């Protein structure tokens, strides 16, 4: 019963957030105006700037921002007990993530669809824009290293997921060929593709693949990480229609199916099953395993994309803002996109606190900080689905492991492609022409170097996970400061942006300092992470000072005329 009550409270908070708070933001703070000519209409070129139906745009936006992070983060963070994680996911989505994603979309729409990086140049100054490049490089690097380790862990802990994980690539290749080469209609191809994916899950469930202790002279962990990087490099070099596009699409469809299965299981299990899904996790965990960092501030950066995430602002201002048909659609696409991500996190929390059979089992899984993670999601969610839908536990676990792997893998190969572009850009900046293949090689070497920096088991990849949270949130504070400056200039209430800005900034800065101290512990010193952390701290101080100066300037200057946005000269941006 407990899980259902929690699910209903969570869903009610999201609904209320959308119906009440986002309406307030739309009407009073952002003052959305249907008559404002959006960049999609003003610069319609049929390529980047295309007016798009709001439901379809929401689907694109949501699937681009949903990765493995909203699963990994909350699944680790419940170690402090279920209530803090639940509150941060729900309140964080309603008051932080929703306003941030919605605001980034609005800010970009009001600025001819320019990205957050370009906007920081306009509102905060040139230094803000440079900072953005550093942060984005680190963020992408962390994503590919951490996700390689997440996938490796799942492939080892859930050997039944090996066949569906790699089989999904073949399904995607066949879907791509069927749609583009054979020109078959999409609906039957989708149905066959999804059925094939689930058939692979059933097959994988009966044929688990466990690698021997030493495979090709490597441990399974080393082998999987190397294979994943080679796969990512090839995927990022292939034409998009061959693999990436059908893979993202099938994954998007699978995301909706997975969410329905998870929430449906909680509902059905509570209403009809003999064993009601009770919450076994403590509300506040007073018996924390040794080595667990303090809840404040680490809870907030660990949950990362489960609540507020700077990466969402990048997507909002990078592609979604160029496709908004009417300015009023920003509320649905931006705010409700964040709610979608919140739903995924809520589902994860329900799985890891209510899907585990007993308190003893729960404590065994959460025996050390970071031990819970996706494995707990797979185990807990698998049990919930067994209970609710009657699927065998191992099959349910395979379904969820495949879902998590697919999320992580699509984010990883997109991350490698983006990082390759960044490397090529850096090459251009120092007047060295780096072509596609050397750039990809650089990405693979740097990524592997980071992942293996703590040993061949890939420990380096996950140890930077807390840094991912901090970096990501510093980017979110950069975006919030741009929104705050815009609101002050327009003489509107800036508090909905400034309160989350201060909180997110203080918490991520605090976490970064906490971590800096931990990296210098004698006997357990980690100088690579120390160096990365120093960069992040310097960057965050920088953001803080720049943002305060920009806000003071904005408050002193005369108010911005209401029609100024419409008169901005149109500037196109390479996407």
């Amino acid at each position, binding site marked *: 019963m407990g899980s259902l009550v929690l699910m209903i409270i969570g869903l009610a908070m999201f609904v209320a957030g959308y119906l009440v708070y986002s309406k307030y933001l739309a009407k009073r703070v952002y003052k959305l105006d249907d008559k404002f000519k959006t960049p999609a209409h003003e610069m319609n070129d*049929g*390529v*980047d700037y*295309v007016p*798009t*139906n709001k*439901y*379809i*745009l929401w*689907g*694109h936006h949501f699937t*681009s921002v949903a990765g493995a992070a909203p699963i990994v983060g909350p699944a680790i963070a419940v170690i402090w007990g279920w209530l803090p994680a639940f509150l941060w996911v729900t309140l964080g989505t309603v008051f932080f993530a929703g306003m941030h994603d919605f605001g980034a979309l609005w800010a970009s729409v009001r600025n001819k669809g320019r990205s957050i990086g370009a906007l920081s140049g306009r509102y905060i100054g040139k230094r803000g824009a440079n900072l953005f490049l550093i942060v984005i490089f680190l963020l992408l690097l962390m994503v590919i290293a951490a996700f390689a380790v997440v996938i490796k862990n799942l492939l080892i802990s859930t050997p039944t997921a090996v066949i569906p994980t790699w089989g999904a690539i073949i399904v995607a290749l066949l879907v791509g060929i069927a*749609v583009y080469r054979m020109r078959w*209609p*999409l*609906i039957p191809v*989708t149905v066959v593709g999804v059925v094939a994916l689930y058939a692979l899950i059933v097959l994988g469930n009966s044929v688990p693949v466990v690698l021997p202790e030493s495979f090709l002279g490597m441990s399974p962990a080393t082998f999987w990480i190397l294979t994943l990087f080679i796969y990512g490099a090839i995927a990022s070099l292939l034409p*998009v*229609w061959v693999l*990436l*596009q*059908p893979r*993202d*699409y099938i994954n*998007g469809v699978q995301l909706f199916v997975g969410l329905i299965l998870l929430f449906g299981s909680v509902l059905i299990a509570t209403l009809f099953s003999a064993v009601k899904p009770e919450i076994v996790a403590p509300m506040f965990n007073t018996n924390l395993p040794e080595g667990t960092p303090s809840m404040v501030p680490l809870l907030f950066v660990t949950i990362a994309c489960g609540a507020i995430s700077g990466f969402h602002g990048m997507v909002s201002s990078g*592609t979604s803002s160029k*496709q908004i048909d009417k300015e009023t659609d920003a509320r649905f696409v931006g705010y409700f996109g964040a709610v979608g991500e919140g739903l995924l996190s809520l589902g994860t929390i329900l799985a890891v606190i209510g899907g585990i059979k007993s308190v003893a089992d729960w404590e065994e899984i959460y025996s050390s900080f970071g031990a819970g993670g996706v494995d707990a999601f797979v185990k807990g969610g698998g049990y919930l689905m067994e209970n609710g839908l009657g699927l065998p536990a191992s099959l349910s676990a395979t379904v969820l492991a495949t879902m998590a792997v697919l999320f992580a893998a699509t984010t990883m190969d997109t991350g490698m492609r983006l990082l390759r572009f960044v490397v090529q850009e850096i090459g251009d900046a120092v007047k060295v022409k780096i072509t596609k293949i050397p750039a990809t090689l650089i990405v693979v070497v740097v990524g592997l170097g980071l992942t293996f920096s703590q040993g061949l088991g890939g420990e380096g990849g996950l140890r930077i996970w807390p840094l991912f949270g901090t970096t990501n949130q510093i980017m979110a504070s950069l975006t919030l400061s741009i929104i705050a400056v815009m609101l002050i200039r327009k003489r509107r209430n800036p508090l909905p942006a400034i309160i989350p800005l201060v909180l997110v900034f203080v918490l991520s800065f605090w976490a970064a300092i906490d971590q800096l101290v931990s990296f210098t512990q004698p006997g357990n010193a980690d100088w690579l992470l120390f160096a990365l952390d120093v960069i992040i701290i310097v960057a965050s101080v920088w953001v803080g000072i720049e943002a305060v100066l920009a806000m003071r300037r904005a408050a002193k200057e005369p108010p911005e005329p209401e029609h100024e946005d419409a008169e901005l000269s149109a500037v196109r941006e390479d*996407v």
Partner: protein
Amino acid sequence: MAAADSAPQRREDLSRRWAAFRDGLHEFYVGPYRNMFLREKRDEDDLFMIVVLGEALGVPDPAAFYSAELMPAVWEDFHAWHRRIGIPDSPLDHIACC
């Protein structure tokens, strides 16, 4: 009578909704990558334009005899092309597109 009217109406509604669903799904598939495809196609078209107009632009072309035949195929896009590659006015005297 009303029931007879409403049956075709319902069928029409249903087929309209089905078509909207089909279009939506298609858009969900192609949308995120639309710009990449169009950009690649544009690059290919630009290359084709350069090959066809090579001789006219002063680049010796041994196959000019054949490529000249393709000129009418590129007229329509010529203006957009020279603007896109950064030449504000027509680079060819005999084409006064702007």
